[in-house]
């Protein structure tokens, strides 16, 4: 760390315990400048870390999993299931006769479980009043800044199969 102390021949303890007040202020500000530059380096390293994660990102492979039978839930009804792992809770809503939508049940704010409000026709997070659109999972109101991840469903015969998660 000698490069940080270039330009002075005094030992650090002598610099930090200056006899004159002006000298003391001088040293404190100079050391704060060093600290700020090191913090700036930390921010840069953080951005590099995100860049490396982005470059080496591998798209996850999702299993194809039957989640419900067609007509199993009534229009306006809800079914909960787990996808792609048993820890990822999802919510499926039948919005019309032949229309189903499904989203991750984790609120994108602080991971509380969202529920379907039939009266308001939206997904609501009870923790901090975050509301999501039933059409695309977009944030309608509240603290969440990202939409709910959408589970893509496909009708195969009489089954609804979850094939991937988007977002």
């Amino acid at each position, binding site marked *: 760390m000698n490069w940080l102390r270039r*330009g002075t021949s005094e030992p650090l303890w002598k610099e930090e315990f200056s006899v004159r007040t*002006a000298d003391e202020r001088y040293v404190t500000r100079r050391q704060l*400048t060093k600290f*700020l530059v090191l913090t*700036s380096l930390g*921010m840069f390293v953080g*951005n590099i870390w995100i860049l490396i994660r982005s470059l080496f990102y591998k798209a996850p492979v999702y299993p194809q999993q039957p989640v419900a039978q067609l007509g199993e839930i009534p229009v306006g009804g809800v079914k909960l299931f787990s996808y792609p792992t048993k820890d990822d809770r999802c919510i499926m809503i039948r919005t019309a006769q032949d229309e189903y939508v499904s989203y991750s049940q984790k609120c994108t704010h602080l991971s509380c479980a969202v529920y379907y409000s039939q009266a308001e026709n939206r997904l609501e997070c009870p923790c901090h009043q975050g509301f999501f659109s039933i059409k695309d999972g977009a944030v309608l109101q509240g603290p969440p800044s*990202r939409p709910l991840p959408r589970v893509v469903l496909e009708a195969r015969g009489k089954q609804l199969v979850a094939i991937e998660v988007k977002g």
Partner: protein
Amino acid sequence: MPTSNDLPPQNRGLTAIAGAMSLITVLLIVQIWLLSAALESFLGGNRHTALPAAIFSGVMFLISLGLYAFVDRIDSEVRGSSNGR
């Protein structure tokens, strides 16, 4: 009217450091915002913002480093003139 050259070298050094420190602080605030925005974007599944964010953050770090080198030079000069008195 007194100019900055009339001030003692220690005070001139202090002024230079305070100026550099202010600029570095502004750059640091922008870097913190940039890091949080890049992370938010990355977690949101958008991976195209990482490269420009890293480049801008690197540029701001280099400017901060340049300002620190400037402070270091002023420091050496001030100490040199103080020791010479």
